[in-house]
């Protein structure tokens, strides 16, 4: 016992040094992340890429098993669900007829106008491997990565509506920041008024509409699509519908089924024009009103 006590007393300063060193190292890492975030984030993407896909043999079956159990629990309400589905199916059939007619009409009109749809908007489909694991961050990990040609900033949809954008690409995996994440900002257009705004996530199911010029022109139920403002995002992807939140602020009810994200489409965007030389951007002839000094010289 006495021996142990001596041992403990001898160990204590060493422990203190180890803990001190670790704390300093960790705080330095945090500061490095704060100052040079992209470098650390790239490291994070690579680490996740090594870690998570090696578990996909377990991740997918366990997810499916838990979903099956949840499905079994809803077995009790199966009769009501059946009735409800039949009713919805009847409505859907009517809608399908209408949609087919409209599609034919649309195809005819497009042909008449010789409209060419953008052929470069193809997609890669990925399976959702994991989510962020934290209740305060909204993102999912896909099983497609740099190997499949995925590039940071591309848009992802679930087939119904916009889900988010790629942020962080590893070799075999890439992370999608969902529209609901508090770091997500997407340029949008609100139809039919055509107003531009920013959709900003705030960790709730319905993201906020910000920087809207005339809120009076927008009503609940207006459809929201992505806009190509700034060239960061493909335009015209359906996002959702305007809804007024409980806090009386304008929000978007998302079209994508966020309850269950299983397969996501990553849309290949155009290669944006890369600006390498800032000088050539300045036009040779000055556009707009002349500078004050020049104006003074001209008048003399």
């Amino acid at each position: 016992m006495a021996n142990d006590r001596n041992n403990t007393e001898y160990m204590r300063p060493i422990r203190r040094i180890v803990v001190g060193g670790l704390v300093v190292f960790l705080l330095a890492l945090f500061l490095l992340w704060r100052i040079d975030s992209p470098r650390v984030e790239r490291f994070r993407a690579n680490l996740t890429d090594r870690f998570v896909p090696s578990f996909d043999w377990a991740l997918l079956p366990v997810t499916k098993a838990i979903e099956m159990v949840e499905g079994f629990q809803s077995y009790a309400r199966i009769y009501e669900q059946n009735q409800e589905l039949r009713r919805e199916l009847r409505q859907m059939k009517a809608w399908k007829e209408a949609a087919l007619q409209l599609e034919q009409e649309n195809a005819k009109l497009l042909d008449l106008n010789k409209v060419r749809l953008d052929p470069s908007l193809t997609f890669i489909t990925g399976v959702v491997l994991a989510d962020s694991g934290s209740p305060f961050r909204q993102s999912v990990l896909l099983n497609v990565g740099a190997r499949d040609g995925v590039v940071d900033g591309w848009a992802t949809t679930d087939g119904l509506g916009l889900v988010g954008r790629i942020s962080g690409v590893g070799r075999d995996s890439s992370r999608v920041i969902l529209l609901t994440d508090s770091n997500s900002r997407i340029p949008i257009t609100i139809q039919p008024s055509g107003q531009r705004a920013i959709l900003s996530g705030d960790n709730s199911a319905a993201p906020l509409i910000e920087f809207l010029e005339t809120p009076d022109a927008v009503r609940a139920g207006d459809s929201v699509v992505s806009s190509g403002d700034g060239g960061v995002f493909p335009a015209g992807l359906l996002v959702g519908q305007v809804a007024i939140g409980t806090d009386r602020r304008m929000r978007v009810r998302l079209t994508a089924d966020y309850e269950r994200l299983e397969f996501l489409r990553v849309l290949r965007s155009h290669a944006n024009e890369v600006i390498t030389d800032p000088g050539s951007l300045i036009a040779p002839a000055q556009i707009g009103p002349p500078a004050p000094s020049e104006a003074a010289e001209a008048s003399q």
Partner: protein
Amino acid sequence: MIDPVTSQRWLYRSLFVGICMVIVFFQILPLSTLPTTVPGPDLLLCLTFAWVHRRPEFVPPLLIALVFLTVDMLTQRPPGLRVALILLAVEFLLSRHDDSSQMPFAAELLFTVSAIVVLTLGYGIVLRLLAVADAPLHLSMIQVVATILFYPLVAGASHLLLSRVGGTGDLD
């Protein structure tokens, strides 16, 4: 020949890492991708503190740093800051143990609760000072309450698991 105390120590250290991996595994399952309104408890924190109170030699600082840094990286948190605060909290809890070898559970709970609250507050304050987007305050508070409520359960389970191990005399 490895002496039994050392081998047992490494067995329980790997058990700790194993439990942590299972918890993280279930956290990152994409079961619901809707934002949660009621965040669950931070079970990793409960587990670490419970083991620190019972068997500090099974959770050395290096292991805690490694586990929590990996979790920070996987769960998109700002890396490092929270780990450093957890290490300091662990040192605080251990320093409370110096006076008496056996601590009543009420005292343990009190110290742990204060450690969790100070940890979360400190984390939030530093993030806000450095203008890093953090979770809304009410969500972190709900998580603190949930963590505190779950602590006795985790502590009880850890007690059952660890009380069978023969004492080694270290800090205990």
